[in-house]
């Protein structure tokens, strides 16, 4: 983990009401690498992911302390523009959620609400984003078709194109392929492999093989604690801690 750091999390604690969901988590996430977050259900990995673009702000009765520094700026400072933050830190969810609009409008949506009006520039952004998300060849002749008419795997890639259209630097993925068939899953994984050349990607997954395949580094969470964080190669062949070994071997969780 010698690459330049993109995200530095320092002593992060997170509470849902009285319940502590993250316990003093500190981690450095490198730039333009894929970092996988693994752990049993309820371990805090998705909560942690959502702290990275302040998605948890939308949930009432939550509290957070500690620091999340992106490019050395604490995103929990009062003067942070949340819209700008979420442009910089895009997110892909488990269930694809295209808008009930055309494929074109789905991808152009972000740039448009950011004030972009020039048709030729929007066309270019839509094409580039769909190419980056490996969907262009499948939809280029039918951009006016509803996004909802696409298959599950295509919808997920459409959501990735929509996230890429606002030119993010970081992409958060919360189990992005868990509802997809093996072929669509392979496409998403290939896409992640391709995207890491230009983006910092953090992915939550319950699929150990997927974490092993797509990520450079892996963090294992358990009951709100960051237990082990190391290169993916080491994590899945010879982890440092017995607790990690037991989890990846399917002995608990």
């Amino acid at each position, binding site marked *: 983990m010698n690459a330049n750091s993109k995200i530095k999390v320092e002593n992060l604690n997170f509470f849902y009401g009285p319940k502590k969901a993250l316990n003093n988590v500190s981690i450095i996430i490198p730039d333009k690498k894929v970092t996988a977050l693994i752990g049993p259900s309820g371990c805090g990995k998705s909560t942690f992911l959502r702290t990275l673009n302040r998605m948890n702000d939308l949930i009432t009765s939550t509290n957070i302390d500690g620091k999340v520094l992106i490019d050395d700026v604490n995103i929990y400072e009062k003067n942070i523009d949340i819209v700008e933050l979420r442009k910089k830190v895009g997110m892909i969810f488990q269930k694809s959620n295209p808008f009930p609009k055309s494929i074109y409008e789905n991808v152009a949506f972000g740039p448009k609400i950011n004030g972009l009006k020039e048709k030729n520039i929007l066309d270019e952004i839509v094409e580039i984003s769909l190419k980056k998300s490996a969907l262009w060849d499948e939809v280029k002749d039918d951009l006016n078709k509803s996004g909802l008419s696409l298959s599950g795997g295509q919808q997920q890639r459409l959501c990735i194109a929509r996230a890429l259209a606002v030119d993010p630097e970081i992409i958060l993925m919360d189990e992005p392929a868990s509802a997809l068939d093996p072929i669509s899953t392979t496409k998403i994984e290939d896409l992640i492999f391709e995207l890491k050349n230009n983006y910092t990607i953090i992915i939550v997954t319950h699929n*150990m*093989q997927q974490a*092993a395949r797509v990520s450079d580094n892996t963090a294992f969470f358990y009951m709100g604690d960051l237990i082990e964080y190391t290169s993916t*190669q*080491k994590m*899945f*062949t*010879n*982890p440092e801690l017995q607790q990690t*070994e037991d989890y*990846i*071997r*399917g002995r608990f969780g």
Partner: protein
Amino acid sequence: MQSHFTSEIESLKTNLIKMASLVDELVDNAITGLATGNVGLCKGMKSRDREIDAYDNLIQVQCENILAIFQPFATDLRFVMSVLMINNQLERCGDIAVNIGQRAKKTSSYKELIDESKVIDMANRARKMVQSAIDSFIQNDIQLAKQVLVSDDEVDKLNKEIFNFLVNKMKSDSTLIEPCSHLIILIKHIERLADHATNICENLIFYIEAKVVSHPKISGKESSTND
């Protein structure tokens, strides 16, 4: 209740132990036949070797199925990998035992030359190494495995020493060319047997300590690890 995965692993280990027992028996018969001149012990070895080959096939298929179905990680992955590698080594040990048995028949009338050349000492060391390698695997005994690695150096040293002795014998007495040639081939088999025992122990160390200790001289690295 035993998990599906655990029962598959147990079955794999049981089959490897059964195969190892056959190999142990075959090696023991070949070397005892060589040492005592009782070549009757070396009869029927090929059919025993076919049983070993059948286990070789079975274990390969079991490993393939486990890897495909369970996609194991960490210790489990290393176990299946080491079983695959040890299986290969044991199969070769079986073949070599047959070769030693055949060579024992051809050299049985040269007992004096065999005794003088330390071939039996070398063969006994190799046999002990195979037995210790099998025991170390069954008992996960890493210390025993490491002792086997040390023993291999002694066998290599004996190999060179006996080779030189046999060459000198041939130089001094041309009537000994044929038996000495047999013995040179024999010590090559014994040396390979010791090498396979060593490989089994290296595979066990890989399984238990997650270290690749084979070929320590490559690139100046003492070992490769995923540390």
